[in-house]
């Protein structure tokens, strides 16, 4: 990607990011959307904050021609959030592809044709990032399964086992003896 195309992207950064946020936050009902979009205090709005900061980090990686690593701290937080929401895996990572359409609209057709080689390179970066994001999503799911497993191992579910823990313990002690 050339410097001029990068500059165009950065000129429109604010508008692009806002529209990109809306693709994720717009999935919430209107009442929630308004709060998540407008509340700037991250502690009063963790979802909005994670979406905002995660997308900005990814945009910065995509809009520079360097080989910067896709996995960045705030993006990781956003993906962790996507991994525990009640959505499919494809939906959880689909926001990455939506950037293509948002940038197309913001840069308009004239710029698109003038910079079509840059555009192709930019799209290739988005595709590569989507794969990396999918890996991050899977890593978060794996981590969640470990959390579930660890909790199960801690034995708290004994309170709903319907058995007598004293008897279980006696059995174990007999086994050891």
């Amino acid at each position, binding site marked *: 990607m050339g410097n001029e195309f990068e500059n165009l992207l950065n000129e429109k950064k604010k508008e692009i990011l806002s529209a990109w946020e809306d693709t994720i936050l717009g999935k919430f009902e209107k009442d929630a959307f308004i709060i998540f979009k407008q509340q700037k*205090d991250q502690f009063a709005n963790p*979802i909005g904050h994670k979406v905002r900061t995660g997308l900005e980090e990814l945009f910065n990686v995509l809009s520079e021609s360097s080989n910067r690593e896709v996995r960045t701290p705030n993006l990781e937080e956003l993906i962790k959030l996507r991994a525990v929401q009640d959505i499919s895996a494809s939906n959880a990572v689909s926001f990455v592809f939506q950037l293509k359409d948002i940038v197309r609209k913001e840069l308009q057709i004239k710029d698109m044709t003038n910079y079509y080689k840059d555009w192709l390179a930019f799209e290739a970066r988005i595709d590569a990032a989507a794969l990396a994001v999918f890996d991050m999503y899977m890593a978060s799911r794996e981590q969640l399964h470990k959390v579930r497993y660890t*909790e199960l191992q801690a034995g708290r579910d004994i309170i709903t086992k319907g058995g*007598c*823990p004293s008897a279980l*313990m006696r059995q174990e002690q007999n086994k050891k003896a």
Partner: protein
Amino acid sequence: MAIPKAEELGVNVAREPSLMTGAIPKKEWMDNPVEFKEGNFCYPAKQSIVEYHKFPNPREWSPTDDDWKLPDGWEDIILNGLKERLDKFRSLKVFMDICVRCGACADKCHFFLGTGDPKNMPVLRAELLRSVYRNDFTTAGKLLGKLAGGRPMTVAVLKEWFMYSYQCTECRRCSVFCPYGIDTAEVTIILRELLHLVGVGTNWILEPAANSNRTGNHMGLQPHTLKDNAGYLMDDIEDITGIRINPSWNRKGAEVLFITPSADVFAEPGIYTFMGYMLLFEHIGLDYTLSTYASEGGNFGLFTNNELMKKLNAKMYAEAKRLGVKWILGGECGHMWRVLHQYMDTMNGPADFLEVPKSPITNTVFENAASTKMVHISEFTADLIKNNKLKLDPMRNAHRTPTWHDSCNPARAMGLLDEPRYILDHVVPKWYEMPENTIREKTFCCGSGTGLNTGEIMELRMRSGLPRANAVKHVEEKFGVNTLSCVCAIDRATLTALVDYWTPNVSVTGLSELVGNALIMDGEKERETDLRFAPLEGMEG
């Protein structure tokens, strides 16, 4: 997932419903039915457990079924139950009438902030009940129905109640912001009570409650098991400190009865907190006894109905009377303190056979507990420190950099805010506060209280705990915090899973565990590890 046409590409390659819990978007909330699927509900109570409690309508059923096998005339059972409670609890009547829907509570609930589901806005959760109240109990509602915000009791409404009364942890953060002081937790309490009238309840609550009723504690531990388990923990204390402690059980004539959650004797990380209590009592030579009968601080009756809460709570005073103690000391539990502080005296008091608690070590009289006769371990410990009665070496906690999680019930239901902080000041070299709007009265819930700490809703728990985890993440990054300390057994269990996901380098401790680490015991050997057998700073080799 179908491949989209070229002209659709701009929209989204993946089409999904909204993030309203299992619901279809863009309709008025009343017309938006809930949809139960694996992962968004707690498993229903087993038939045998419902029978044990002698609750109505025991049966095998699943929330995913269309037919919940409700009893004949269930609508009348619910409405009569509501009428009875409106007459009985003035607070409910007031809460039904006075909300002006100002919206101050709307964005304060951790369930709403973590799920984005508008029905988790406290105002709307209450509206689930209020709409039925309006329809059948107000003149406007009777005449105008939906126009006046009313709606009849239907199966869809009942299912909605089940969904959202089990997406509230009764943490009462919303109440802090309500200009009218509406306690939405009490709305949830009533919703759950009404659901039990027709046999709709969850196993994670009713089975521990049954255990507690049978053996005295949630785990179902019998006396010898409790004693044996505590014994193993005393073995560990001996290995670590060289001191042998022999806890006192069921001893008549002791000055103080100590009651704590049974998880403290059985499950990590609560067991380290239990070791802390025992070291503390040994250190000051307290004349105390534990009880194998009143062996549970927790009271899942609070999450069920007022009758069960009263019944399970009664054993505390009954055991105090039987043993002839002067007063009761309570351990690190969350909702035990809400039951104690707000309901116990009314339900099972007055405990006039007990004395106003007075510390035998400092002679401090706990006037705040003059009525209930029960003192929190943090109040007791803070008073000991204030009067220079404890020998402490905070450097033994130098490997920990804690932050303080105000557990909802001790913080908001009994005002325990400064004592734990005072203790932390003296038992760790340094600790850090989370941001102002996430602590003290405004503390965020662990996300899994009131019997929601069950594995089948793990993703939901990770969402509802997000506001808390987000603040922990902040202090981890800013100050290098590696420990989340608190005074609640459910917190210790659920925050462990929460931080494992959101901030894996942070671990959870009880406060008394940190006290136990710091206590310099008479005749102890040089300590090389903390109570978890982790090497102390400078002892890593």
